[in-house]
C-alpha cells in the first residue's frame, strides 16, 4: 500500500468507497465540494449512485430512503447545510437507520464565512434536531485519521443502527497530506440486516418509521435508543494523549486540527521550560469524560486550558467532566481565524506565570 497525496475531501470520499458505500447524495457547499466532485467521478466506476439533490432537505431524506434498503449510504456537507438536514437526522435516529454524515465545518452562525471553524460542536453532539436522540460523533485531526474514522463510521453506523457524524474544520477537507488507503476495509463481522426493506416477497412487509402514536410504544423505542447510547458510552470512547508526564503542570484539551496546533505549541513551550500535555478527544459523543476526569485530577496538574475554533463549546463538556476539580481557562478564535501556536503559547505562559511565587513578598 503506497502513500499518495490527497486532499482531505478526496480521501474521505475514497475511504467511503473502500468501506462499501454505494449511495452518495449531496448538495454543493464550500469547503466540502471536492467530495461531491470526486464521488461524481468514482461512483459510476463502482456502479454506485451519485445524486445531487435539489437541496440539503432532499438529500437528507434520500439518505433515509436509501438506508432503509440496508445499503451503506452517506452525505457530506458544511455547517449551514447540516443545519438543513437536522429534521431527517432525527427521523433516522428514531427509525434506527445507519447513515454516515460528514460535516466539514465553516464559520457561522448563519451563512457566516467559508474559512475553518469548530463551531458546530453543540449541533453535532447535543442534537441539532428534536427528540431524545444522539449521534455518534468522531473528529479526526489528520487526513490519515479522517480515512480511518470514515471507514469506522460505516461500521459503527451499522453496529448501532444509528447516524454517525464525522466532523472536521474546513482544513480537514481542504488540506493535502500523504495517506495510505487500504484496498478494502476489514471490519469485525456484523449481524445480517434483517430489518432492511428489501422486497416483501415470501415474507411479511417491513415498515421503517419513527412514528409511534401509542405513548407506550414511543417510550419503548426511546428506551431502545437510550440503551444503545449507553452502550456507545461504554464501548466507543476514543481519545489520544500527547506528552502527558508527571512533571506537567498544565493540561491542554483540544480536538481536530486544533490539537495539532497545540502540539506545536507544547513542543515549543518545552524549549522554554514549560511542560504541558495534550488530551485530544477523538469521539465527541461519547465524550471521554472519565479519561478527562482522570487526567484533570492528577496531583501535578494545576491548570486546564481548552482551545477551540469557537466560543467555548466543547469546553462545557470539559467543565462537566472536570466537575470543578481544577480551574479551566478557555481560549478560542472565531470567524474562520485559526489560533496560532504562538497564541496558544501566550495563554500557557500566562497561566504558568500566574502560578509562580511572587518575589519579594513577605509572609505576614
Amino acid at each position: 500500500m503506497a502513500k499518495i497525496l490527497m486532499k482531505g475531501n478526496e480521501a474521505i470520499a475514497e475511504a467511503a468507497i473502500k468501506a462499501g458505500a454505494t449511495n452518495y447524495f449531496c448538495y454543493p457547499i464550500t469547503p466540502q465540494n471536492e467530495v461531491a466532485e470526486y464521488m461524481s467521478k468514482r461512483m459510476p466506476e463502482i456502479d454506485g449512485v451519485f445524486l445531487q439533490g435539489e437541496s440539503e432537505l432532499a438529500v437528507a431524506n434520500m439518505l433515509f430512503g436509501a438506508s432503509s434498503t440496508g445499503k451503506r449510504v452517506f452525505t457530506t456537507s458544511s455547517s449551514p447545510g447540516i443545519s438543513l438536514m437536522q429534521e431527517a437526522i432525527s427521523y433516522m435516529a428514531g427509525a434506527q437507520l445507519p447513515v454516515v454524515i460528514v460535516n466539514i465545518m465553516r464559520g457561522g452562525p448563519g451563512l457566516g464565512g467559508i474559512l475553518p471553524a469548530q463551531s458546530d460542536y453543540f449541533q453535532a453532539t447535543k442534537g441539532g434536531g428534536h427528540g431524545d436522540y444522539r449521534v455518534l460523533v468522531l473528529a479526526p485531526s489528520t487526513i490519515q485519521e479522517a480515512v480511518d474514522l470514515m471507514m469506522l463510521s460505516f461500521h459503527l453506523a451499522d453496529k448501532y443502527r444509528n447516524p454517525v457524524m464525522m466532523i472536521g474544520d474546513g482544513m480537514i477537507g481542504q488540506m493535502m497530506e500523504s495517506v495510505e488507503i487500504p484496498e478494502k476495509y476489514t471490519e469485525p463481522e456484523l449481524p445480517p440486516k434483517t430489518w432492511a426493506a428489501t422486497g416483501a416477497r415470501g415474507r411479511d412487509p417491513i415498515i421503517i418509521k419513527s412514528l409511534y402514536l401509542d405513548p407506550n410504544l414511543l417510550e419503548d423505542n426511546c428506551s431502545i435508543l437510550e440503551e444503545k447510547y449507553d452502550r456507545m458510552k461504554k464501548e466507543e470512547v476514543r481519545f489520544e494523549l500527547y506528552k502527558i508526564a508527571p512533571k506537567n503542570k498544565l493540561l491542554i484539551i483540544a480536538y481536530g486540527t486544533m490539537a495539532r496546533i497545540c502540539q506545536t505549541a507544547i513542543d515549543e513551550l518545552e524549549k522554554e521550560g514549560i511542560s504541558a500535555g495534550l488530551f485530544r478527544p477523538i469521539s465527541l459523543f461519547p465524550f471521554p469524560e472519565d479519561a478527562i476526569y482522570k487526567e484533570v485530577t492528577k496531583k501535578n496538574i494545576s491548570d486546564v486550558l481548552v482551545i477551540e475554533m469557537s466560543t467555548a463549546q466543547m469546553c462545557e463538556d470539559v467543565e462537566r467532566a472536570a466537575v470543578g476539580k481544577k480551574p479551566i481557562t478557555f481560549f478560542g478564535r472565531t470567524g474562520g481565524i485559526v489560533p496560532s501556536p504562538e497564541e496558544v503559547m501566550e495563554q500557557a505562559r500566562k497561566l504558568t506565570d500566574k502560578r509562580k511565587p511572587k518575589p519579594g513578598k513577605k509572609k505576614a
Partner: protein
Amino acid sequence: MESSQPLTMETAVPRFKPPEIPRDIIIIVGGYGSGKSEVAVNLVRFLVEQRPESKQPISIVDLDIVNPYFRSREASEELERIGIRAIHPRGGERYADLPIILPDIKAGIVQNSGTMVLDVGGDDVGARVLSSLADSFSEVDYDLLFVLNANRPFTADVEGCLKMMGEIENACGLKFTGIISNTHLLEHTSEDTVLTGLKLAREVGRQTGLPVAFVSALAEVLDGIDGEKIKVPVLPLSRSLLKPWEKKSRHGNTK
C-alpha cells in the same frame, strides 16, 4: 517543520541549471493539489532574484476561483515585501471562492506590462477561468505549463496525465508549452520521489512533444540529489503556504 532557507541560485547553479523563462506571461495549471500555488510563489521569487535590475513589475495573479484555502494569495504580504505585485481580490472577497476576474489581469496581459505569473485553480474546472481571458492571450506569447505530481490519484500515470491535459486545454482554449515536474509527498518527499516523478514527466513530454520546463522540489530534498541525474533546469522550493501548526513563530492568521 521550520521552513528552511531557500537554496539560492548561487549554491544551486553548480549542480542544477536554473529555469529559463523567456516569456512574460507564464500560466501555471494542473490537477488539484499538484502544487501549482507553491510553484507559482517560488517562481516569482526566483524571477525577482534573476532580474534585480528590471524596471518592469513582476506580478503574481491568483486566479484560483475553485479552492477556498491554501491559495497563493496567502503569501501575498511576503511577496509584496520583495517588490512583487500580488493581484487578487481584496477585502472580504479575498476569502471567497467566487469567480472574480479583476480588470488588472486583462490590462496587464494586453498592455504587456512586465512579467505575470498566473496561478490557476486545479483541473479543467479551475482552468475554465482562462477562457474568459482568451481574447487577451491571442495577442501575446505565453507559456502554459502543466504542473505534474505523480503522487496525485488522477495523474499517477501517462494515461491520466494526457487525459487531464486534454481536459484542461479544452476548458481554457490554450495550448500547453511545457511541463513542470513537481512530484512530491510534502514532508515525506525523498530523492526517489522527485526522480520517479521526473521519469513520468519525461514520458508525458515524449508523448506530447512538450519539454520538461523545469523540475521543482524542496531545497532540502534537492540537496541529496546527484546533479547528473537531473538534466533539465531545476527550481528549488521553499514552502510559503504552510499549515497553522507548521508555523512556529509567526502570529495569527489575520488581524
